[in-house]
């Protein structure tokens, strides 16, 4: 079996050794929980509980606010305190349901189902009701993704186990510890698409995962394992599809346009749980790591739990953190306050004792072309960043600036330490906002 990859990309220090050998530990919150109503792309969920109401684990507390939206479930039992605004990891302030944890962990009764007995519509309904969203970071509601216009044209279901972001080990642990759930979830998706094959795609820096998953798919004729070259951003949707199927999509296409559906490991497990076990999405695995953390760990945590509690559970700080990032170092969000809740898309709390950005002053561009060599989208990042800085929208569009996938490779490799990706992102945002206006 060949090792698949794409053109461009980088090899940052991966930091995974800090937490990769730590078994997933379930963590119970002691404090209160906060459920932002917007943890996904699309319309915010609508609360269906009121202050003072008692809720159980698995009880729906907010319903989907539209087709592209997802419901939210209580992950502990307790009493709704209030519905008010909260700070989130990205620094925005959104409405959220505040829940007081009663510490009893009483649950509703879940309704398991036999996959064989479910019709396709029922499967989609269970996924949609389960509040499953893309847990790799985008938070796109899964039932929407799994309802393409022409499902018979879907040929490949790609389970994204690349986990190319440095430091993150949650997918790695999940594949090692619960491979049957990953495969179970993939089988659910395959049931929706009669003509599709399932590919579990794993970077070759995880040989133990590759061995484990291979064992479990021996008797699965529709499932194959695809080995990927370890390189960032191998797990980016467009790069993954390219590496595995040699089909290329641009920013205005969906994976379904080339017969693909891509879901990450945790999402597939959430699909399995909501369809087969009847358990909605209430938990996720979060890697708490970085060189400022005393005991880096992988935790199974309820959505809504406070970041500070995660850090405390991991032994707190062993060094003064300079930067705290929600997610990975390449695409995560740096935070100024730990008093924010874990959401469905929280993959990691990364605490770094040094800050590469502050430590490396920006100098002038020497036109070395490293950004061009490594750009997986085949763009000219240094030129695009210049256009962005000058607000030259026409040139930016002409040089295909809108195709940027914001992976950050250009900023990473720049020897002049220029914030290329950041400049490009800001003009892209403006352009997208203009498009919406018109």
């Amino acid at each position, binding site marked *: 079996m060949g090792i698949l990859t794409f053109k461009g990309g*980088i090899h*940052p*220090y991966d930091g995974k050794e800090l937490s990769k050998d730590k078994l997933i530990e379930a963590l119970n919150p002691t404090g209160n929980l906060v459920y932002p109503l917007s943890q996904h792309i699309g319309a915010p969920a609508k609360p269906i509980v009121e202050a003072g109401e008692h809720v159980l684990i698995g009880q729906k507390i907010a319903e989907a606010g539209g087709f592209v939206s997802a419901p939210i479930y209580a992950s502990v039992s307790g009493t709704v305190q209030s519905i008010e605004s909260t700070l989130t990891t990205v620094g925005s302030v959104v409405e959220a349901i505040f829940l007081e944890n009663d510490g009893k962990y009483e649950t509703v009764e879940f309704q398991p189902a036999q996959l064989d007995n479910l019709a396709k519509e029922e499967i989609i309904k269970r996924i949609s009701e389960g509040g499953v969203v893309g847990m790799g970071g985008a938070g796109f509601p899964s039932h929407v993704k799994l309802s393409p216009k022409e499902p018979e044209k879907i040929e490949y279901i790609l389970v994204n186990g690349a986990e190319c972001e*440095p430091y993150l080990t949650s997918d790695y642990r999940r594949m090692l510890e619960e491979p049957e759930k990953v495969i179970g979830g993939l089988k659910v998706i395959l049931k929706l698409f009669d003509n599709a094959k399932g590919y579990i795609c794993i970077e070759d820096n995880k040989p133990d995962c590759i061995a484990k998953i291979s064992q479990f798919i021996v008797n699965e004729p529709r499932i194959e394992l695809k080995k990927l070259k370890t390189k960032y951003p191998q797990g980016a949707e467009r790069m993954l599809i*390219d590496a595995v199927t040699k089909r*290329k999509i*641009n*920013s*205005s*296409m969906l994976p379904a346009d080339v017969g693909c559906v891509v879901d990450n490991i945790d999402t597939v497990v959430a699909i399995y749980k909501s369809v087969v076990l009847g358990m909605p999405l209430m938990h996720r695995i979060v890697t708490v790591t970085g060189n400022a953390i005393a005991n880096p760990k992988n935790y199974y945590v309820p959505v809504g739990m406070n970041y500070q509690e995660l850090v405390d559970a991991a032994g707190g700080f062993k060094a*003064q*953190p*300079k*930067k*705290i*990032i929600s*997610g990975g*170092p*390449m695409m*995560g*969000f*740096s*935070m*100024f306050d730990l008093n924010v809740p874990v959401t469905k898309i929280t993959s990691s709390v990364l605490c770094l004792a040094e*800050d*590469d*950005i502050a430590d*490396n002053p920006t*100098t*002038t*561009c*020497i*036109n*070395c*072309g*490293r950004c*061009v*060599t490594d750009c*997986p*989208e*085949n763009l*000219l990042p240094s*030129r695009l960043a210049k256009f962005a800085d000058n607000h030259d929208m026409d040139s930016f569009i*002409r*040089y*295909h600036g809108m*195709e940027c996938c*914001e992976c*950050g490779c250009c*900023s*990473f*490799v*720049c*020897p*002049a*330490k220029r*914030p290329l*990706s*950041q400049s490009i*992102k800001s003009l892209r945002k403006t352009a997208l906002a203009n498009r919406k206006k018109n």
Partner: protein
Amino acid sequence: MNELLHVSSSPHVRSKVRTDQIMLMVVIALLPASCFGIYNFGLRALMLICVSVATCVLMELVYEAAMKKPVTISDFSAVVTGLLLALNLPASAPWWIPVIGGIFAVLVVKQLFGGLGQNFMNPALAARCFLLISFTGRMTDFTVPASAFGTITDTLSGATPLAAVKAGEDIFNITSLLIGNVKGTIGETSAIAILIGALFLVCIKVIDLRIPLTYIGSFLVFIILFGGHGLDANFILGHLFGGGLMLGAWFMATDYVTTPITKSGQLVYGVILGVLTGLFRIFGGSAEGVSYAIIFSNLLVPLIERVTIPVAFGISKGGKA
């Protein structure tokens, strides 16, 4: 927490490679050629190298200090310019030649256009051409200084091997051409020393093969087709190793600032260099053509880039989506 956290937009990590390190690597890569030049032409060559580097660094320091700009001499770019300039001078040049050249390179070509990254021509080569035009006699006097350590294999006309080829002389042995104990500018004579440095830069990924190989390749094709000597080995080897082609192709045609950033543009640039060098050498008045070819092609870079904008990933050629 008693200290504020840093907040910035992703990505939050940076590679270890810095501009000053890249420049330092280029300096290191030029050391074999420099050392051989000193061996070949004696301490006078060392003096010229020192004067040239010192002038460039001082000029940058003085200008930036006078203009109240941040002083950037620690990025080694002025050192590279000074070193390249010296390697392009004949060892017999008087001390004031690199002084004038260094001032021209750093002040006029580099700083007046905005400093590092903004110069539209390679500063060292622009200075060399300026000196060649202004002080033609001094710049083409390849008399070997008495202090030379090595033994120089001479040609009949007493000029460089390339000039001998141009004059139609049957030349020398190939070994001295490769080793470099022949006449020429300080840094251009030894193909082996230059290639050692170039190989080092290729291995540490400071330069890639696109420009040098298309340059040398298209130049070869040109002289075979239009040189009038067909596949005559003497003629071809003389052109390859007897003049400034190796130093130019590996160290000056690959200067980041003055080359296209697009990959296909680099190929176009290499071909233009090869054709122009061939044109200047075969049909031009002087034996040498590399410097003029490079600074002329530098001017074409914005145009080359304009027509070689790459098609983005997933976009089909010729249009959207």
